[in-house]
């Protein structure tokens, strides 16, 4: 009888410990850094824009996308995405200013933290000059 009580108590204890450890993962976060361009920069006509930055996660990330939008015409002039699972990313892309008119531009970086639609983002605005 005593042995049975010990076994039941031990088993419940294991279950309790197992359950209590199961759901306490911290949510994944990411640090987004846009090195280039900087806010307020001006890219002259015909010149190349350097889109340069890093993403560092506290755990596995689920991809990222980079979108460059002309806010004056509301046109996306560059976009790209990477769906690989990594703990960090770095990007170094180029775009040449052929807009034809001075425009306000926005570069938007979106990082997928999971597959349920949780994201974090960072953007920077600058000017494409003519």
């Amino acid at each position, binding site marked *: 009888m005593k042995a049975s009580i010990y076994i039941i108590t031990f088993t419940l204890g294991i279950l309790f410990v197992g359950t209590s450890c199961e759901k306490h993962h911290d949510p994944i976060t990411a640090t987004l850094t846009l090195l280039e361009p900087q806010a307020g920069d001006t890219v002259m006509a015909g010149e*190349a824009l350097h889109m340069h*930055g890093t993403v560092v996660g506290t755990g596995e990330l689920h991809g990222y996308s980079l979108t460059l939008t002309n806010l004056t015409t509301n046109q996306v002039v560059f976009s*790209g995405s*990477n769906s690989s699972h990594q703990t960090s*990313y*770095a990007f*170094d*892309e180029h775009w040449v200013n052929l807009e034809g008119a001075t425009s306000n531009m926005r570069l938007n970086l979106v990082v997928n933290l999971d597959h349920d639609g949780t994201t974090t983002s960072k953007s920077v605005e600058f000017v494409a000059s003519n």
Partner: protein
Amino acid sequence: MKIIGLIGCVFWTFSMWSCDICGGVAGNSSIGLLASTQFHMIGIKSSLNTYRSYLNGIVHSREHIAQGEVIARWQPHARWQISANIPYQVGRQKRDLGSDFIQGLGDPRILINHVLVHQKDTNQATRNFLSLGLGIKAPWGRRAPASSMIRNLYPSTGAWNFSTVLLFTNRLTQRVSLQQEGIYTYKMCDASGYRYGNTYSYAVTVVWNKSLGTGRLLVGPGLQLERFGASTEDGLQVSGYNNQGYVLESQVSINYLSYKWLWGLNVVQPLQQNFNQGSMKQGIRLSFTLSYLITKNSKK
């Protein structure tokens, strides 16, 4: 007889061109075996170089540079050698969000080498060999437009290079010799005013040879240190990433010399490197060379 005459030959694994691919990291340009005086040679060489580019320690692109070259060496005189090659290059950069692919003719190169010392033993095998070479790389290959952000992927640097090559080989035993070479390359600026920094290199190779079948096997493990100066633009040092740095590499060459042919395989593995502020790392490099040997007409 031809093979026996080559026992005293020297490896010529020099890095005279420092071709500036990916910013100058691909300095080596082995043109295979240089027999001391006996042959003209014509051949082909295929090579593959790999690189990774980093931002804050995170890889953001991978580069593969493949080259096919026609190489030739003419021996007009016992003390004069002329080598030339014309490369064709295919370069690919793979990034997270895209890729670039650039191909075209590279810069042709010529080297005029003067044999200063060539001492032989009673068997006519080379004992000591010292030569001084002057090389020129002409900017006639496909070059990047001035505004290009992937300048290093293009086959041509768009600038003239001038090199001096000092090579010394001495035989240690009947089967082993030691080769040392020092190279300095002065680089001029391209049409846009951009100039890669000058390069210096020193290499030491132990060459071991043994007869095998109808030919001779030559194996040369060695070490090489290359230093790259900073790039400048309109005379001013480029700030930030300016291609400055060094690479210490191990390498091994395996060559087989038959009656008419010379086969060569060269593998280079960086041991330590700090280049372009750590933003680029060179990977393993492989090259394969096949040359046809043409016996000099002897005059009596």
